[in-house]
């Protein structure tokens, strides 16, 4: 069974099914006709030109970047101490804490976004971008906690004890000994969380408003009005960037083990 050709064939077909569409979209982004046709007719780079000339794409890209970086940073700052606590201590109510910090990944994103919208409207008038930032931080926390916990679990707890016995406080031993050795996990958490935020639609859907949208939301809006290869071009750019990030992160950090 180990070398069965039938099984290998299934794997190859699966890869074609998973990745083929990306190839299709990249090819069709170079077509010259406005009609979405495959195989595309002609060759042109005009759709790429158009992507960079649409102001809303530029604006929303920067919003997505800003929200993604801020939310990821906050989720790491809040999540690393939680991961450390959960891995290093036994305490009553630990399972409740673990459940709390994994549940934003279990509860449907759409419901989280919807609830936040209702809540923000009712409680106070929070600026749209702040609402986005808070919502994104909440859904990223499970990722940072999970990924950092995983790399902490692989790290010998005796090393921390050694640092403490040599005179370090708990905080200093964390900073001087643990953090440098789990930096791969922290970077992996950062990448995963940032990609999750940057790609998010369900939460953002309810939290965006007039003038302030994220890039994926703007892409959805654009698709409702225009149906030309502009989205294919923009998608191709995003796909290439994603492939680059994932491949690099896999080589350096083995990111697939953390997903």
């Amino acid at each position, binding site marked *: 069974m180990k070398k069965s050709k039938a099984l290998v064939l299934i794997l190859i077909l699966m890869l074609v099914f*998973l990745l083929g569409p990306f190839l299709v979209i990249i090819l069709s982004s170079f077509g010259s006709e406005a009609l979405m046709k*495959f195989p595309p007719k002609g060759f042109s780079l005009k759709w790429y030109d158009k992507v960079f000339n649409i102001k809303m794409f530029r604006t929303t890209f920067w919003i997505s970047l800003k929200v993604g970086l801020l939310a990821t940073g906050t989720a790491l700052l809040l999540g690393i101490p939680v991961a450390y606590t959960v891995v290093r201590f036994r305490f009553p109510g630990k399972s409740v804490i673990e459940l709390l910090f994994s549940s934003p990944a279990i509860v449907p994103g759409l419901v989280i976004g919807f609830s936040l919208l209702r809540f923000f409207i009712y409680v106070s008038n929070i600026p749209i971008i702040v609402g986005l930032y808070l919502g994104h931080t909440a859904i990223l926390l499970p990722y940072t906690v999970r990924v950092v916990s995983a790399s902490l679990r692989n790290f010998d707890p005796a090393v921390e004890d050694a640092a403490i016995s040599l005179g370090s406080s708990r905080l200093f031993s964390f900073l001087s000994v643990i953090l440098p050795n789990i930096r791969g996990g922290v970077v992996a958490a950062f990448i995963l969380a940032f990609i999750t935020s940057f790609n998010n*639609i369900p939460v953002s859907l309810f939290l965006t408003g007039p003038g302030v949208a994220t890039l994926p939301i703007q892409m959805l809006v654009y*698709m409702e009005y225009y149906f030309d290869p502009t989205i294919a071009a*923009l998608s*191709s750019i995003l796909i290439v960037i994603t492939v680059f990030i994932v491949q690099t992160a*896999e080589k350096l950090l083995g990111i697939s083990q953390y997903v």
Partner: protein
Amino acid sequence: MSQINIRRTLLLLLFPGGVFLCFFFLAPLLFVLVESFTGLDGGVTLQRYISVLKDPQFRQVYFRTLKIGLIVTPLAVLISYPSAYVINNLSVGRKSALMSLVILPLMTSPVARTFAWIIILGRFGLINQSLRALRLIDEPLRIMYTEGAIVIGLLQLFMPLMVLTLVSALENIPDEVEEAALSLGSGRVGCFFRVIVPLSFDGLIMGVTLVFTGCITAYVTPAILGGSRVLTLSTLMRQQALVLMNWEAATVIAVVMIATTLVLYNSLRLIRPKNL
């Protein structure tokens, strides 16, 4: 550290994240939950639920959503198991290379991922053009805006999750177990079903849970591939809230979605094969 010291440290470490989630996750959910039981006069009522649950459109959408999950999940299992098995038997380097490819659909912008299917399934898309070139059809098939299109899109999105959980479950089975089963006269197929599947069963259940709940709550894929013609629970909720401004109905759908997810999440984990 003394008990008191430990308690203080724990509190200090958990407090910021805990407070954050209480304010910006739990409170809003609770707020919506309470709202869903509140009548116009401010009293407790089931009126909102009754009017939504009585609506035939809601019921149709609800069962369609479950149906889509019930189709996608077994398909994902059927394709992922053999694939995960092959991937797991590769050398470390090749395995990592393949895994980094498999996870791409999860990492790519959902709009990009789903838009690709429009090009493939659309009126002038890859499939229709090919079929026409082969003279198998005269009129283009309508694949877009059907349940089938949604199934295809979700399968691409969630299969990586299934492969990931299965590979990590298979990783934990020592090679010797399979060799022992084979040396004891088990056929290869028998070995797979009697040894490999039971030993990776927890991973399988985990994968099934992730894929099934994922299908039920997915938004972008049904929004683009199903449109407003083939609604699912999430696209219906968005339509009620943002298009029809029917906040009462959206609230109820939100609660129904959470309840369904939680029930599935907790009940699927109870499944255990009989002989384990």
